[in-house]
């Protein structure tokens, strides 16, 4: 297989397979979670579920002071790499083209050097997070193999994307093909791992808030 054939495959059938698994996986998992329902709460409602739920979706995105103090590193590094991921995935011009091709509309991009810097910052943050995780006894104890796999599959597209952009080490078509392939791997495992938190966090937070809202206490 020539490198352009490889590139054509990851842009064609490879991407198609990845998208099918990703979309099917996410929808089926969601349907299963939501259709399972919750136990009827027999207690009398003392407040609104909706108000508390919606508020929590927002408030839980801002760490409270005591949590920030306790695990400042995890929160700061976590935020940095999540913002970095958002910028590199959604605000890089070539990526926006992909979304435009998929959903029919695009949005303005940020200048390429900004994306470039964000990618580097994200990679450093992810590496720091791994080191921190492995050095902390408690964190290491609660980390599963899946967590390491997910970490690897998250950092790989960033590293390969950076290499493809700066054309480091290999020929350009190979670098681009490898970058797209790593993204496809991420898409394939996404619905079946903790990566699903990107979607489920909204629902989980809503439930947390809704429980408090039902009881009439501040969420």
């Amino acid at each position: 297989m020539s490198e352009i054939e490889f590139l054509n495959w990851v842009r064609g059938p490879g991407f198609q397979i990845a998208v099918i698994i990703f979309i099917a996986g996410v929808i089926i998992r969601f349907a299963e979670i939501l259709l399972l329902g919750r136990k009827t709460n027999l207690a009398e409602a003392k407040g609104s579920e909706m108000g508390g739920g919606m508020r929590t979706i927002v408030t839980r995105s801002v760490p409270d002071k005591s949590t920030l103090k306790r695990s400042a590193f995890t929160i700061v590094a976590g935020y940095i790499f999540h913002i970095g991921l958002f910028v590199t995935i959604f605000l890089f011009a070539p990526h926006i083209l992909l979304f435009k091709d998929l959903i029919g509309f695009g949005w303005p991009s940020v200048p390429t050097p900004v994306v470039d810097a964000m990618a580097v910052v994200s990679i450093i943050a992810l590496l720091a997070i791994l080191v921190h995780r492995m050095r902390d006894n408690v964190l290491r104890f609660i980390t599963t193999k899946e967590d390491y796999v997910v970490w690897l599959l998250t950092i790989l597209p960033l590293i390969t994307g950076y290499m493809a952009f700066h054309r480091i080490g290999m020929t350009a078509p190979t670098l681009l093909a490898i970058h797209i392939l790593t993204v496809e791997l991420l898409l394939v495992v996404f619905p079946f791992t903790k990566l699903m938190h990107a979607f489920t966090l909204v629902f989980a937070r809503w439930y947390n808030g809704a429980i408090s809202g039902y009881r009439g206490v501040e969420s």
Partner: protein
Amino acid sequence: MTDRINNKDKSPADLVQLEKSRLDKTLGETLRSQGISRRSFLKFCAATASMMAMSPAMIPKIAHALENARRPSVIWLSFQECTGCTESLTRAHASTVESLIFDSISLDYHHTLQAAAGHAAEEAREIAMEENYGKYLLVVDGSIPMDNPGYSTIAGISNYDMLMDTAKGAAAIIAVGTCATYGGIPHADPNPTGAVSVGDLIKDKPIINVPGCPPIPVVITGVLTHFLTFGSIPELDHIGRPKVFYGQSIHDRCYRRPFYDKGLFAETFDDEGAKKGWCLYKLGCKGPTTYNACATAKWNDGTSFPIEAGHPCIGCSEPDFWDGGGFYKALSMPTANITETAIYTAAGAAAAGVALGAMNRSKKNSAAAAHSDTTIDDLEK
């Protein structure tokens, strides 16, 4: 070549005789007889040296080697091709030293350019092969059909047979154009003729791949000059292309690169960005994945190259460039219709999700129904 066209009424044997006498002349003598001054010849040598990234000290060596080179016999085979490569190489700019170098090689067989036809033409090829066995250069353009030999024949000889037969006595092979180097258009999906490249068939001869649709004329003369000067083939990359010409991508040498780096793109062919000469990535430019000398050597006697003329690079010097999902699809876009795939997948998955949800529910309900209270008696059992 010009001589030969004027010698239409001569018999093949006469032509071969004429060719022989021309072969005795050195390249320098031929060029002088064509009225090329020493100055313009040295300018050509200097340009070639700088283009091939050689040190200036090599210029006299190139000049000396070219001056004294006996005109090498060249056999040019055209298989499944469009003659675009020949057009590019012979018509591009007739008055330069490069084209005269072409005139000065002994092009003994080229079925588009030669005056002879039929048996006489084939005879010319056979004589050239016999007389220069082991020394002649074989140039091939076009791919070779392997599905049915009848798809492309010359004088009743299949392309495969002619290639294998002629390659035997060749000193080296230059595959010209993307069809000969990587299969090109005939090889594009679904490859109806079973087209393959020269390199797919011949493994025991040095092959220089000069891809492009068509390739830049100056690249061919560069390769020829290298062969005449050093008697060897230039350093090649992993897919057989001379590194001096195919070592850098169009993107890395593109004068519009700063706009890519800044994120300034032309969105359509006639918007403000296009008028300002911004990057053509969004219009499908394959420059980032294409290795060729267009951005530096340029076309039409150094006038410009496609991107300079406002059109994205189509990646013609790379294998399988026809199967990249369309020339106007950006590199970051999928080649298949993903939207359709996504909609069908979502519909199917939603149905599957609802079914699975219903199954889980009924499982939960039946588990609840089967639930019975534990009594003291149970625990004492």
